[in-house]
């Protein structure tokens, strides 16, 4: 027992006395670390950016310093597992500055120092929580999935709802108005099918079928007032490629856009949004609530799906919306034109400050998560011009994205990590609309993503925790009556 005490004390002492080594050699290369946090820009309230050294499992030490504050961390089997409170202290001092990171590794018995690199800490904080769906990145059938929330200032993740509680049905399209966690929308498919609207502790279940025109509610976007939700209704099908790296093709055979009036339980639409000559989808409101952006693809009379799947390309459009009298404008503006660019736009999202609009572009179609060529573009309202978000894009898929409430952070899903499983990345968008190198959402174990077999789907920033109890949701799903919606 005494011996054990001595060992533990010795170990504790040793662990406390990690010192910055004196390097005998300077290496001319940057360290290979996973996830790649070299030169990234981070918010000052993010959880520790724990990472691992990809080059060998030799003894290694990381030194993070900013002004007078310093963290010296010894690698635990090549993993640098920074303490949360030390990290927070460091970030507090580093706000608006750089943290300089030096990594030493023992190679052939002597210490070698890699090229140091900075981690930039922005002045602006990020929203504290991220909501996402975890699903297998696969084909039509679903077995296990759920909507989760992660406190990104720590490593705590909680389930909002898992489909193991609802007979393994499908649940999707969670959405929040202006990053407000108290109001939420999501759909359930198959068993307990319907659209669920959460307002504080109240839950309303809606029957998504409206007349013969609307079979179900699909892609949502809240009006900033919280009184309306823009939605699309889509007849979506899926097939897989006989031999193509994109694997799967998801396409619509029909789609239209409408606005759901929450107070009146009514659907509002217009022939410009609900046309037989076009597929309209992915609606989103501007932060002032006076514009509705959506994607629209012209369809020829001869169109036959899936035969012509590569010919469907979406314009990015805008139409006026008047929330006071619930009417739409009479003209549609085209922001991104298929005729001009030859490619297809989707997922428009306007920054809460109304200055920028980020959307995804790929060669064709609307379901860009399966398109390796998909990249994000940013539209600057002051310049009336769009450019690719090169600093945030990669050679692989970038698709769904959402803004933080202060318009400085953008979270997006990307397949760059392994080519299949989407992971959430966060990028800083400065006042000029320029993206900075993004970082993958940090995990408690830096090796987590390597063996995690689910995709992060629809990452949405929220300003706090979704507090609704899953039991309440399940009770409404199983015993509640769906409210009918009319025109």
């Amino acid at each position, binding site marked *: 027992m005494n011996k054990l005490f001595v060992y533990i004390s010795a170990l504790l002492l040793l662990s406390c006395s990690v010192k910055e080594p004196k390097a005998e050699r300077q290496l001319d290369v940057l360290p290979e670390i996973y996830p790649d946090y070299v030169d990234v820009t981070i918010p000052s309230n993010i959880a520790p950016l724990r990472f691992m050294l990809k080059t060998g499992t030799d003894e290694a030490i990381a030194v993070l310093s900013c002004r007078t504050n310093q963290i010296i961390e010894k690698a635990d089997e090549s993993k640098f597992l920074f303490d949360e409170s030390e990290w927070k202290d460091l970030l507090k001092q580093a706000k608006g500055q750089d943290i300089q990171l030096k990594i030493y590794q023992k190679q052939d018995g002597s210490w070698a120092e890699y090229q140091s690199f900075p981690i930039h800490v922005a002045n602006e904080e990020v929203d504290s929580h991220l909501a996402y769906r975890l699903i*297998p990145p696969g*084909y039509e059938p679903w*077995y296990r999935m759920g909507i989760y929330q992660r406190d990104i200032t720590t490593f705590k993740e909680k389930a909002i709802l898992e489909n193991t509680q609802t007979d393994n049905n499908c649940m999707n399209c969670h959405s929040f108005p202006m990053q407000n966690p108290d109001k939420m929308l999501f759909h359930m498919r198959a068993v307990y099918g319907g659209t669920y609207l959460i307002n504080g502790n109240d839950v309303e279940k809606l029957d998504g079928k409206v007349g013969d025109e609307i079979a179900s509610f699909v892609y949502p976007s809240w009006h900033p007032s919280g009184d309306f939700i823009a939605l699309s209704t889509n007849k979506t099908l899926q097939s897989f490629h006989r*031999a193509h*790296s994109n694997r799967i093709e998801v396409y619509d055979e029909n789609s239209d856009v409408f606005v759901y009036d929450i107070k009146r339980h009514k659907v509002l639409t217009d022939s410009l949004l609900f046309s037989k000559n076009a597929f309209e989808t992915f609606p989103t409101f501007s932060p002032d609530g006076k514009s509705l952006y959506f994607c629209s693809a012209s369809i020829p009379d001869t169109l036959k799906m899936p035969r012509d799947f590569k010919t469907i390309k979406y314009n990015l459009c805008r139409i006026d919306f008047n929330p006071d009298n619930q009417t739409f404008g009479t003209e549609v503006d085209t922001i991104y034109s298929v005729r001009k660019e030859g490619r297809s736009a989707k997922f428009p999202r306007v920054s809460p400050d109304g200055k920028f609009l980020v959307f995804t572009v790929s060669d064709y179609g609307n379901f860009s998560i399966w398109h390796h060529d998909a990249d994000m573009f940013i539209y600057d309202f002051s310049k009336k011009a769009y450019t690719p978000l090169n600093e945030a894009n990669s050679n692989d898929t970038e698709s769904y994205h959402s803004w933080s409430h202060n318009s400085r952070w953008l979270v997006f899903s990307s397949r760059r990590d392994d*080519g299949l499983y989407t992971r959430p990345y966060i990028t800083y968008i400065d006042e000029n609309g320029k993206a900075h190198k993004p970082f993958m959402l940090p995990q408690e174990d830096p090796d987590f993503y*390597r063996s995690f077999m689910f995709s992060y789907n629809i990452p949405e920033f929220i300003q706090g925790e979704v507090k609704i109890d899953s039991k309440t949701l399940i009770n409404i799903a199983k015993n509640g009556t769906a409210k009918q919606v009319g025109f």
Partner: protein
Amino acid sequence: MRMRKNKPLNPTNVPVDRDKRDVWIQILTYLILSVLVFWFLQKFCRYDYTYDEQFRMFRYSWNYAEPLLFSAGGISTYIADYLTQFYYWPACGALINTLFFLGTALGVFFILRKLIPDYLTSFFAVLCGLVIVVLETDLNYQTENTLSILLILLALNCILYAPNKAISSVVFMVSTVVVGYITGHFMYVFILGLVAFLFYVFGMEKFTRKFRSKIPPQNFVLRQVISVILCICALWLGLNFFTERHHNQSTRLKCLETLRWRKDWDGILALPYMKLSPTTLYAAYQNLALANKGVLSEQFDKYPQLGVEGLWSDNHGLQYELLLFSDIYFVQGNVAASQMAAFNGFYYSGKTVLPTALLRLVETNLINGSYQVAEKYISLLEETLLYKKPASEYRKFLNHPELIEQDPVLGPLKKLTQGLDGLSSDMFTDLKKIVQANPDFKAAKDYLDCYTKLSHE
């Protein structure tokens, strides 16, 4: 010595020596019964175990262990996963399950010995042991439940047989926490432990002793004979169950799946029921075996054929169907369909296990040039005991398409996919396109020929 003075610790009205002898006879009986149980399990249930092996994937990594070790009930899952990997080898499944039988039977025996007339205890104990091994053959039953039962039995025995009340109370408290954490069943452990503890503290044996002494026969030899006969009856009941189910569809399917995973094509063709009671499903296995042997077209007529559904089907909703058809599409050269079926099979239950499906996904991703995700799967498989070697052998293909092209299995499939495009519509159309683009690809051509023959019949 203290035990002799303390009457409640020798609850029966038989002399201590005889009581001890009685216990040893019972233990010896259990050991003999265990040998029989092992023999029967190995004879009738070996494919249950080899099949189960695929539905867990124990990985030698902290990343895998940590969430299990630090969650209530996770340790029993960790141990169950660990044990199940050994089911791969012949007789290991039967051996581990025999130990489950023996552990349960002895655990129950020693508890009941305190509670009810001693010569009936063996019968109940054997029955409980058999119930466990029967449950273990059900795919929906979780081995962690057996481990939980064994640990709870151990804790109850420790409480009941503690040398004094103080130790018994400590054991009760410690076991509630430790066994409760390991099994995740705090409430059950607490309630059962409390009952055992109260039984011990209040000397409840005084009451049960009265019954013991009245139940005939009192003759020691006769009691043992009755005990053994009852045990044999229990065993007979259990074994009857196994022999019955040995011929049912589920057990046959587990056998076929095991042979398919192991690529034992001759083994599949040699199964007697393939010819004696053919079904479209059996035909699909049989034709897959013939195709893999390269003789589908030549020997097609020598085996029972039940229409085109015996070749493949576009409808595959169940997990074993998905995995079977993944193999069929693969041998046909339809890499995309094979990948789709393997992927859906892999995620079927929400548990991301099935190492053979993962190996298939490694192959399809290598063929398609998706090296990063192939590497991810290889890394996971390299953390297992059984699949480390085959997975590592694929590592050399990462980022080396020229090596893939030289591989006798992956090479022709890679070449074949280069001639395909468009979206898959149905498997027949896909097969036709494969044959049109690659008329020399024998397995695909054989399947198409057989399909044409069967569709004309």
